[in-house]
């Protein structure tokens, strides 16, 4: 299969050996589960249960808030203790409306949805509806509702489905283990999705630093005799897993800015998402648990664990033998694009692909020094931006100038900050700029809305005043006329 080259990118030490040989284990059922209502891109889910309800595993807890949203299901059987606010797994430390479920220990499944026995006969609509019903979201980290993506086939002509087994983030090995241990489930899910999208070509992309997974998947596809699926090794280079760059490497097509990869006929799905589709379609099981890697030098025994959604990070770490030292950084996701967590009493959600407790040594941190314009960040940026110039504009509060040279096109992969010899937090600058710019846009939209309201009110007041004046004038005129009328009446 012909591969293309992407611009820039960095060679990160993948440090997957910490957990790549650990088979997937299941977490013993935790006593309390904290299920936030916002676990996906789009509107938050709306609860359908109230405090005190007793629910079974897999029962609907909250329905989708809008077209682009995903429902939530009970990760285990138990009692709804409370629907209140709990700290979200987010660096802001803000709280979030969360359903707090107290498990009764029986872990009893509810009545599963009717399995679709021959998915290849069913049309795309039913498969997309089933994915929506089961609350499936992208498990690669973006957590975009899968149903919406599966529906794309009906509206746009697609020709390729790419299964993202790149997992270019260091430390994370959950996709690798899934491909090795749950190969059939993954491949079945892949074929179902390919049928729903109506694509002829399916490419499973796996980085060459995962040889066993590559071998097992290739062998399974050959055994299955599915000619449309090709499993290919791609160079282990960060950020290979970024959607647009993976599509470029495999198909050579470049996704236009502000557009989706679907607009150039390619849809990308994560390996875990494929497995979730398999469970939803074949067994009617909603998304209630996912595999994630708990790793980092500060964790005694790094492992890959199948975790019910809503488990607290503290429980995960305790299951892995606790911490060997207070972690320098506690992250959700990989070290490159992962979000630092405000503490250990936060739940894991559908989009959490890993929990990392990194020691100071692993960070290679250092004092921030002035930028010496070495240009390394320019040569490693996969999106062809000039990070040092954007950062110096942002530092001087000239966000419009930074936006003009493309800060909105930054995908935040972190290659520049990784390679910067002066340890400048470039991605932090860009995230601040993007946040500030969108806040300014929101304020501008609000000002425009208020301008419309003010103009409308002024017109209305004007009309009312005019009407009153006319009425006054009419009444005065009428007051004069009655004598004439009275006069004529008497005559």
């Amino acid at each position: 299969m012909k591969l293309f080259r992407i611009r820039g990118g960095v060679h990160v030490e993948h440090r997957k050996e910490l957990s790549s040989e650990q088979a997937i284990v299941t977490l013993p059922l935790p006593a309390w589960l904290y299920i936030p209502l916002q676990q996906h891109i789009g509107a938050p889910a709306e609860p359908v249960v109230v405090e005190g309800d007793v629910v079974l595993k897999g029962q609907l807890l909250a329905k989708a808030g809008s077209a682009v949203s995903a429902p939530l299901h009970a990760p285990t059987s138990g009692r709804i203790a409370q629907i209140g606010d709990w700290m979200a797994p987010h660096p802001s430390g803000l709280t979030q409306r969360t359903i707090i479920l107290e498990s009764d220990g029986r872990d009893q499944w509810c009545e599963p949805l009717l399995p679709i026995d021959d998915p290849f006969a069913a049309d795309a609509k039913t498969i997309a509806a089933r994915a929506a019903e089961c609350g499936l979201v992208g498990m690669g980290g973006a957590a975009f509702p899968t149903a919406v993506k599966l529906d794309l086939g009906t509206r746009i002509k697609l020709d390729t489905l790419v299964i993202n087994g790149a997992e270019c983030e260091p430390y994370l090995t959950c996709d690798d283990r899934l491909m090795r241990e749950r190969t059939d489930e993954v491949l079945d899910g892949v074929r179902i999705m390919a049928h729903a999208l109506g694509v002829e070509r399916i490419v499973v992309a796996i980085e060459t630093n995962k040889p066993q997974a590559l071998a097992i998947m290739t062998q399974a596809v050959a055994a299955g005799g599915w000619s449309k699926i090709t499993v290919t090794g791609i160079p282990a280079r960060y950020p290979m897993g970024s959607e647009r760059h993976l599509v470029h490497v495999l198909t050579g097509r470049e996704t236009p800015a502000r557009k989706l990869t679907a607009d150039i006929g390619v849809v990308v799905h994560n390996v875990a998402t494929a497995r979730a589709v398999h469970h939803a379609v074949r067994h009617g099981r909603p998304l209630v648990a996912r595999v994630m890697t708990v790793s980092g030098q500060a964790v005694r025994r790094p492992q890959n664990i199948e975790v019910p959604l809503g488990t607290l990070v503290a429980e995960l770490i305790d299951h892995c033998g606790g911490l060997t030292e207070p972690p320098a950084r506690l992250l959700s996701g990989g070290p490159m694009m992962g979000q630092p967590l405000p503490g250990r009493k936060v739940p894991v959600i559908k989009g959490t692909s890993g929990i990392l407790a990194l020691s100071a040594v692993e960070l290679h941190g250092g004092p921030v020094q002035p930028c010496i314009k070495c240009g390394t960040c320019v040569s490693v940026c996969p999106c062809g931006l000039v990070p040092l110039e954007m950062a110096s504009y942002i530092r001087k509060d000239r966000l419009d100038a930074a936006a003009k040279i493309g800060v909105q096109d930054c995908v935040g992969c972190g290659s520049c900050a990784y390679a910067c010899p002066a340890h400048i937090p470039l991605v932090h600058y860009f995230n601040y700029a993007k946040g500030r710019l969108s806040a300014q846009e929101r304020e501008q939209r609000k000002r425009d809305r208020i301008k419309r309201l003010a103009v409308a009110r002024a017109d209305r007041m004007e009309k009312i005043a005019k009407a009153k004046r006319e009425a006054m004038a009419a009444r005065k005129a009428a007051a004069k006329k009655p004598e004439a009328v009275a006069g004529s009446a008497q005559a």
Partner: protein
Amino acid sequence: MQEYVLMLVGTALVNNVVLVKFLGLCPTMGTSGKVETALGMGMATTFVMTLSSVLAWAIESALLAPFELGFLRTLTFILVIAAVVQFTEMVVRRVSQPLYQALGIFLPLITTNCAVLGVALLNVQEGHGFIQSLLYGFGSAFGFSLILIVLAGLRERVALADVPAPFAGAPISFVIAGLLSLAFMGFAGISTR
């Protein structure tokens, strides 16, 4: 032909009107804050300088020399330059309002730009013919614009640096202009004959 090329390079780089002859310093400092403004000012000044040196030559040879009115030279040249600048101002105001806004006071001030008058008088002093004075006018205008744009690029970059307080603003611009003329000393000694 080779002599004209040497004349052009000589006036633009070797004895550059700003950094070697030190003419036209105030508009250089005034409009070299941003590169767009510098580009606009450079084009406007090039147009004015070239046209004025040609007109100056015309007046010199048609009017002043035959009637020995040499003492009127500066007065008539300024009159011509003012007219050309007024015309340029109308054109710029019509063509691009933002540039007109950005240049602001410096557009009419081209009249007082000593480089423009200086080049016209130098043309007469060195007895240049029509083509020579055209090239001399254009060459020095090109040198002026080159320095303006290079200085604008440098000042825009230094605007992003944390210049210590006593040097912020004008002083650092003068340091940059000084270092730039230091670099231009490299061209000293190139014979332009």
